[in-house]
C-alpha cells in the first residue's frame, strides 16, 4: 500500500447489513488516483452500468483522494460517483470540506454503498465501523438542519453529508450537502435517498503516512503562497458572481431559456447591487487559502451565491429581483436541489407557458415569485413540480409538441451559464461531456475567452484545446484539487506530479499524469457505453444548431460543424467512429 492511501475501500451492503473492506491494488490506485477517477474504476468493478440508478443494486461511491488530509491548499474535497438518475449516464459530483478529511480517516480510500436500508436511516461510519441508526425523526428536514441535528445527536466530531426533502422524494437533480456546500449535479442526492438514507456520517482517527513529508510541506507552502496571487484574485475578492456582468457584456449570458445572450437588467444582479447597503462576507472551505465564498445578507442570515446560481435562477428565468434570486438560491440549498438544473427546468417550463404548451399562467419569465413557487412544488413533487422534478428532458418528453428542441440540456443535464452559440469550444465540451453539459468537466470556455480560437466559429483546431481542458479537469477531480487553483500552475502536470510523488513516493511524472487523465476520461466514457450511450447523444439541442443567437447574428453553430468537431474529438481520443 503506497503512502497517501489506505489501500482499501469500505463496501457496505444495506440490504443484507454487511460491511467489508475490499483491497485496492497499487495498480488501480496509480491508474485512477482517487476522487472521480477512483469512483469511475469502482463503478466499473461493481458493474454499475447494468443497474437502474435508483435501484437498490446501484452503487453509490464516496471517493477520497491521495491529497486529502495533506497540507496542500484546497485538497479537502471528495467525489460522489454513481450513474445519474437524471441522465442515466456516469455522474461525479464533488464537494469540499471536513467530510473529506473525516471520511478518509475512517481508514479507507472510498465508501461504496449498495442495497437499501429496511427503514429510513443514517449510515454511520465510525473509524471504519459501519452501523445504521434510525432517521425517521429527520425526515423532511432541510439539509443544514439535518446536518446540525445529526452532529448534536452523534457527536460534534462527526461530519455529515445529508440530503434534503428533495432527495427523499427522488427529485432527479437532488444534491448531497455538507457544510453548506453541495455535491450538486446529476442527482446523487436522489441516489442516496433511494437507499433509504438521510445521511452518511463519518468520523475517524486513521491518518495516512506521506512518503516525503518535508518535501510535501515545502510544496504546500509554495502552493499556498501562489494561491494568494493575482491568479485567484477574482475568486477571493469578487466571487464568481462577478462573471454575470462580464458574460452579459460579451453577449454570452443565457437569458430567458437561452432565447437571448444578454439580459437588460443584468446590472441589478451584479455583486455590487446584491450587496448594496448590506456588506457581504467571505468564507472558505476547510484547508483552503483562496476563500472564494461570498455570503450575501438576506433577512437575519446569509446566502452563499455563485455565478451559476445567479444566472440559472436570475437571467435564465428573466428575473432581475436580486432578493428573489437570493431567496431562491437559499431555498434550493435547503431542499437540496441543484440550482442549475432547477433554474434550467423552470426556465424551460416558462417558455412552454409562453408558447402555449403548458397551462400554468402564473409561471412567467421575470417573476421571482413564480420561481420560488416552482421550487417549492419541485421540492414537494406536487402538481407541476412532479413533472419538473424529473428535469427538462423528461418534462419535454411528457409535454411533447417539439418542446425537446428548446429543453436546455445535454444527455439530460441542464446546461450551465455559457451560451454555446457564442462560445463554440465550450459547445463542443458540452456535447461530448460524459455527465452531460457541464462547466466543471470541460473548462473550454477559457479557450473561448482567449486568443487561441474564434469563439463564434470553432474549427478542428478547437478540439485539442477542448480535450486539454477536459483532461486537466479529470486530473484535478481525481487528485483532488480545487479548479480555482488552475491559474497558479505554470506546468500543471509537472507540478501536480511533484505533489503526488511527495505524498505517495511513486516515481510519477507529468507525462504519466497526462495519460492518467486520458484514462479517467475514457473510463467515464466506458461506463456510458455500457449503460447504452449512443453517438447521437454527443450533440446539443436543436435550438443551438443552424440558427443564429438572436442577440448576436454572427454566432451560428451549424449541425454539420458540430458533428465534425465531435467526430474529430472522438478521433483524437482514439475512439472509433461510434465514439467507443
Amino acid at each position, binding site marked *: 500500500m503506497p503512502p497517501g492511501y489506505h489501500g482499501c475501500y469500505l463496501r457496505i451492503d444495506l440490504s443484507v447489513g454487511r460491511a467489508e473492506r475490499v483491497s485496492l491494488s497499487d495498480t488501480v490506485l496509480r491508474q485512477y488516483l482517487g476522487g472521480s477517477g477512483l469512483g469511475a474504476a469502482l463503478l466499473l468493478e461493481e458493474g454499475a452500468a447494468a443497474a437502474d440508478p435508483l435501484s437498490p443494486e446501484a452503487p453509490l461511491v464516496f471517493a477520497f483522494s491521495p491529497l486529502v488530509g495533506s497540507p496542500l491548499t484546497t485538497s479537502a474535497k471528495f467525489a460522489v460517483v454513481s450513474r445519474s438518475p437524471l441522465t442515466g449516464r456516469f455522474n461525479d459530483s464533488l464537494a469540499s470540506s471536513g467530510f473529506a478529511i473525516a471520511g478518509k480517516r475512517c481508514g479507507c480510500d472510498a465508501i461504496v454503498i449498495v442495497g437499501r436500508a429496511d427503514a429510513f436511516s443514517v449510515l454511520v461510519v465510525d473509524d471504519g465501523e459501519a452501523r445504521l441508526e434510525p432517521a425517521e425523526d429527520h425526515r423532511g428536514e432541510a439539509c443544514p438542519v439535518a446536518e446540525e441535528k445529526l452532529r448534536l445527536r452523534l457527536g460534534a466530531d462527526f461530519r455529515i453529508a445529508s440530503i434534503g426533502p428533495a432527495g427523499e422524494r427522488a427529485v432527479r437533480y437532488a444534491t448531497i450537502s455538507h457544510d453548506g456546500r453541495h455535491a450538486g449535479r446529476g442527482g446523487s442526492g436522489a441516489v442516496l435517498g433511494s437507499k433509504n438514507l438521510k445521511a452518511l456520517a463519518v468520523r475517524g482517527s486513521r491518518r495516512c503516512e506521506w512518503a516525503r513529508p518535508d518535501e510535501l510541506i515545502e510544496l504546500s507552502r509554495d502552493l499556498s503562497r501562489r494561491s494568494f496571487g*493575482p491568479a485567484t484574485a477574482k475568486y477571493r475578492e469578487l466571487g464568481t458572481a462577478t462573471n454575470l456582468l462580464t458574460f452579459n*457584456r460579451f453577449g454570452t449570458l443565457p437569458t430567458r431559456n437561452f432565447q437571448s445572450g444578454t439580459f437588460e437588467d443584468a446590472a441589478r444582479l451584479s455583486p455590487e447591487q446584491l450587496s448594496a447597503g448590506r456588506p457581504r462576507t467571505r468564507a472558505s472551505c476547510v484547508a483552503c487559502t483562496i476563500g472564494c465564498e461570498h455570503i450575501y445578507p438576506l433577512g437575519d442570515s446569509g446566502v452563499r451565491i455563485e455565478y451559476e446560481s445567479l444566472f440559472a435562477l436570475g437571467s435564465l428565468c428573466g428575473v432581475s429581483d436580486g432578493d428573489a434570486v437570493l431567496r431562491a438560491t437559499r431555498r434550493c440549498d435547503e431542499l437540496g436541489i441543484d440550482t442549475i438544473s432547477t433554474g434550467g427546468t423552470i426556465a424551460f417550463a416558462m417558455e412552454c407557458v409562453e408558447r402555449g404548451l403548458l397551462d400554468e399562467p402564473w409561471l412567467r419569465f421575470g417573476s421571482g415569485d413564480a420561481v420560488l413557487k416552482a421550487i417549492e412544488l419541485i421540492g414537494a413533487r406536487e402538481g407541476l413540480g412532479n413533472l419538473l422534478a424529473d428535469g427538462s428532458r423528461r418534462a419535454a418528453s411528457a409535454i411533447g409538441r417539439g418542446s425537446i428542441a428548446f429543453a436546455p440540456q445535454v444527455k439530460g443535464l441542464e446546461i450551465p451559464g455559457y451560451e454555446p452559440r457564442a462560445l463554440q469550444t465550450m459547445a463542443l465540451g458540452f456535447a461530448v461531456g460524459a455527465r452531460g453539459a457541464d462547466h466543471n468537466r470541460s*473548462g473550454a*470556455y477559457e479557450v473561448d*475567452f482567449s486568443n487561441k480560437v474564434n469563439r463564434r466559429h470553432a474549427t478542428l483546431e478547437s478540439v485539442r484545446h477542448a480535450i486539454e481542458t477536459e483532461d486537466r479537469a479529470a486530473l484535478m477531480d481525481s487528485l483532488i484539487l480545487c479548479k480555482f487553483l488552475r491559474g497558479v500552475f505554470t506546468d500543471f502536470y509537472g507540478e501536480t506530479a511533484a505533489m503526488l510523488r511527495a505524498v505517495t513516493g511513486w516515481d510519477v511524472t507529468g507525462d504519466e499524469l497526462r495519460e492518467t487523465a486520458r484514462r479517467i476520461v475514457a473510463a467515464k466514457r466506458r461506463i456510458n457505453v455500457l449503460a447504452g450511450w449512443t453517438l447521437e447523444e454527443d450533440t446539443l439541442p436543436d435550438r443551438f444548431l443552424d440558427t443564429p443567437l438572436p442577440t448576436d447574428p454572427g454566432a451560428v453553430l451549424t449541425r454539420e460543424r458540430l458533428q465534425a468537431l465531435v467526430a474529430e474529438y472522438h478521433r483524437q481520443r482514439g475512439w472509433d467512429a461510434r465514439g467507443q
Partner: protein
Amino acid sequence: MYVEFLGIPRERVGLTELHVQACSLGELLGTLAARFPAFTELLTADGLHPSIAANLNGDEFVRDPDTVLAEHDHLLILSADAGG
C-alpha cells in the same frame, strides 16, 4: 481610444471606463500602470498576467504588446477565468 474594465481590473483601476491615447497594447498597459499603481500587479514582464484578458472591439482577444491600437478602438480588460 476607449478602455472598459471588468472584474479585477475594474477593482484595481477603480473605474469602469476610460479614454486613453495609445498606439499599441504595450503602450496602453504602460500608461495604465503609471496612472494606477495597483494595476501593475496584473502585469508581467511580457504584458498581461495570464489571469487577465484583453478583448478588442468585442471580437478578438489580444495579448501581444505590439498589437496596434487605433483611435476608435474599444478595448475590454477583464479577468480571464470564469466558472463557478
